[in-house]
């Protein structure tokens, strides 16, 4: 398995709270990883540390690309922001798309941030929307879409820059079970199916059950790892 990202002995405190206490983790290409645990167990902090949103107090997060290992935790804010544009994709619980933009413009946004011409960016965005089954809604406004459709748009946006890893924070938390299953299928197909890694923070055992590996966290440490065939 090709290693994409590796966390070594991560520690993170928020005041008196120990969010991460010596977490070690390796994530490979084509892998889907679910992180579960009660509120305050450190799962979101771990996701944020892996994605370069939070800087751990101690430890390393090594991103391995093109035979190079980059310690994300040691990068400046600006460099981590640039890394998030190019190497990572994000899906949030509520989508958090720009309501004033159309569907295709939202998906094209990461490519525009990378300096791609608008026509080219929108063409790629349309292609991704087509793959996710909502190509016919490209010119719609977000308010005209259902919750499930909006999450598909968010998934398409997360894929736009062809990232190595997609991080999803409760991506189905606001959806009913049937729509949740559909969205999870779309998320897995577009990430793992394309050779990327997917890291999902979830409270939903059904969502975790569809990932190849599940970590259970408690009090800032990984207490259990479950690998599926």
């Amino acid at each position: 398995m090709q290693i994409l990202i590796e966390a070594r002995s991560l520690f993170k405190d928020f005041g008196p709270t120990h969010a991460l206490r010596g977490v070690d983790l390796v994530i490979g290409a084509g892998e889907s990883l679910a992180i579960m645990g009660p509120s305050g167990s450190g799962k979101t902090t771990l996701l944020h540390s892996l994605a370069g949103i939070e800087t751990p107090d101690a430890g390393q997060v090594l991103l391995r690309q093109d035979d190079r290992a980059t310690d994300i935790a040691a990068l400046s804010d600006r460099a981590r922001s640039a890394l998030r544009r190019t190497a990572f994709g994000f899906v949030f619980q509520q989508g958090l798309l720009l309501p004033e933009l159309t569907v295709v413009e939202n998906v094209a946004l990461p490519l525009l941030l990378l300096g791609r011409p608008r026509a080219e960016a929108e063409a790629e965005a349309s292609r991704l929307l087509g793959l996710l089954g909502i190509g016919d809604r490209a010119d719609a406004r977000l308010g005209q879409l259902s919750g499930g459709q909006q999450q598909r748009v968010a998934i398409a946006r997360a894929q736009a820059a062809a990232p190595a890893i997609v991080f999803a924070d409760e991506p189905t938390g606001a959806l009913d079970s049937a729509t949740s299953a559909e969205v999870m299928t779309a998320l897995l197909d577009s990430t793992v199916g394309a050779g990327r890694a997917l890291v999902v923070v979830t409270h939903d055992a059904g969502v975790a059950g569809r990932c190849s590996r599940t970590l259970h966290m408690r009090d800032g440490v990984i207490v259990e790892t479950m690998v599926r065939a």
Partner: protein
Amino acid sequence: MTGVVTLLRLARLFARRAGGDATTLALPAVAFAVVTLCTTVVAGGVFAFFTFGGENGGVYRMLALLALVLLIVPLASLGGAAARLSARRRDERLSSLRLMGASTGLVSALTVLESTAVALAGAVAGSLLSLAALPLFGLLRFDGAAIGAAIWPPVWVYFAVIGAVVVLSAVSAALGLRAVVITPLGVRTRVVHAGARGIRAVIAAAVLVAAVVVMNTLTSLGGIVVIVGAVLACFGGVLAVLGVVGPVVLRAYGRRWLRRAGTPARLISARGVLDDPKAAWRQVGSVAMVCFVGVFAGIGVAITQTVGGGQDAAARILAQDIRTGVVLTLVMSFAMVACAVGVNQAAAVLDRRALYVSLDRIGMPAAVMDAARRRAVLAPLLVVTIGSACTAAIILFPLTGMALLLQPLALAIIAGCLALGIGLVWLGLLATRAVLNSVLAAGVVEQ
């Protein structure tokens, strides 16, 4: 009785909840305080001018009323912005109450109660601030001497201003409630805004033509009272036209900007304007009023300089006083507009904090977010500034032509007004960058 108890309990609960997000209450309160401060100072100035006697006493009184008329527009605009802000920031909670089955009466009463309480707190604070500010304005020299104690308005004015601000807030909250009461889901899910209607543009054009005709036949209207009335009516008509035509024009420009947008900041700002041209207009519309005032001011200076050219000492003092009054009026107008933009933008950032944090997470630099915000205000601002200045110049063309020929300084003042207005609004936007930075630094995506 039970209803009143429920109302008071809910109001208390909401007040406690708002304590966790102090800005929900603080921003509208600050806005109301600024409105009260400005209104009280303007009232003080008007009353001071009414104390002037002598041969020019009547002229001073007329000038005071003219300045009052000019300042009412940006004042009302700022007041409206404050009231809308106050109502908007509790829309979601009220919609939720409606969805949970609260009666229309309860939701209405709660909204009005909250809005008036915030407005009252802000208005009282503004009145106290005016006590500190008025002595500074008292140092200004008019009619050959410092205004001094004459700047203090009668006590009843303070209460009247506070009362007016509270009533404005209550009425605005009640009107804003209609959307929540009638369509609670319309507020919780983003509604598609109705476009600006083309028919209004036609009516506006008719009003504009009528204003041009009246202004060109002023001398044949008769006495001075009729002429002053006609000028004020034209003034009001043009302002109304600007309010109607503004969103239509911004929508047309927004489409053009959208077609050409090649960067995220340009795309987001263009879509932002197109998404709700009326809201875009409300943000910068007051500048249109100020620009319009600027043209009047330019003409006023031209007339002042003509009067000052005489040998009479009283006439020279009067000319100097008019010049001072014009500058004062313009500076206050610009200050109100900049305050309104600052408050509106700060509120917009806070309202969209989760979105901004998420954009930061996907790697959008803060500079890009800021550029999008800045463009969404400044691009319409430029259109509005140039458009309204040209409109006013056309309306006043005969007088503008005279000013151009006899007193080029008048045009220089107009240009200075435009530059100052844009600069102040830019500063207002710059001040809200700190709000964006703090939102991003907090970095909590609220879901």
